């Protein structure tokens, strides 16, 4: 895996999981994410609309997200 794949999930495609107290992709998106994680050569990262909207410095958020995931990939 050398590539990062991003999926931008809108509010209608997200649900809140009470057990884990986290946002989670809903319905078919959950299945797509699972299949991509298991089968594809990409490291798939979901980007939730609500979290991206709440960020004040979006450039910094995206920069950190990419660099942190690349670092994690290299360490593996």
């Amino acid at each position, binding site marked *: 895996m050398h590539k990062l794949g991003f999926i931008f999930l809108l509010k209608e495609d997200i649900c809140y999981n009470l057990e884990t107290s986290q946002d989670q992709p809903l*319905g*078919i998106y959950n299945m797509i994410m699972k299949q991509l994680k298991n089968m*594809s*050569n990409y490291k798939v990262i979901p980007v939730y609309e609500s979290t991206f909207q709440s960020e004040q410095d*979006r450039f910094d958020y*995206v920069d950190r997200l990419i660099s942190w995931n690349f670092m994690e990939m290299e360490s593996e």
Partner: protein
Amino acid sequence: MIGSTSLNTHKANFDASQKKYMNQVLDLIEDNKFSGKNSVSIKTPSGDQDIAFFDKILTKEKKYNKVIKIDTHWLRSYIILKDRQKQEQAEYGLIDDYQGEETKDEVNPIMFELEKDSSSLLQENAKVKKFAFDDDEEEEVSVVFESEIKQKVPSQGEQFVMFDNDSSTENTDEVPNSKLKPFHRKYGEEIDTEEVKVSMFRRKKLEELGKFASHLYLFSDVDTSNYYELNSESYVKAWSILYYFRNKSLHSPLYDEVENIQARNLSGKRISHKLFNDFYSTMLKVSMERNYHLTFSPRCQNSGWYMDMSVSKGNN
């Protein structure tokens, strides 16, 4: 919600009667007894129940709301390149004789039609209309078709042959009319070479696009920039049911449609959604600054699903 866990747990908790009912439904779906619009009633413990089935719409039934426009510049360049190719082939001895004049004759009528002023065309149309409705004004008509009559109609004494069949004119001694009549004109319009060429170009373009792109271009809701919820889409629901219960991911006819809906959704999101545009622009900025390689809507080769974008380091 069409979650994997939820459906599986539901199936495990089914009663014997419910399982029987589900199996009945699945058998009916597999036998292709549904046409996509009709509903079939099935006996259940609670009573009769109607079930609608979502199948792939046939191409005959689909509405084509997109008309491909002809790019005149592309057409000109195509003809010129074709001519040049023939010329080069003749130079290298691939073709025996290069017939440049014939190709010019092919080109000229189209170019003439395209470069005509709209005013002159309107005038001609008006005259033709007059000819069609007023029988008295024959002088104007003779002016309109004068050039054509000189070319097509032979001199007096010879027979005017419209069709290739000689039998129609062999046994007749009548002198043909020197003026073209409206039905002659109509016949000429029906086999207009321009229309034939346009259809040929359209077909060629569609062939070049490939299966997937032509599917996107032709089928319904292509021009719209709306974003549809995949979870509420009927095709997606039907396909996911088949996937969970019968593991029909690639062999299902619905899979193609679901994939296309996802691809359309991507383009719709890019056009209509503001926040997604913002995300895309920030991704571009970051990749420019950090020297990342960004691709929009890449496709996973193993699973076949589309992603919004992907990032890789350098040129990898």
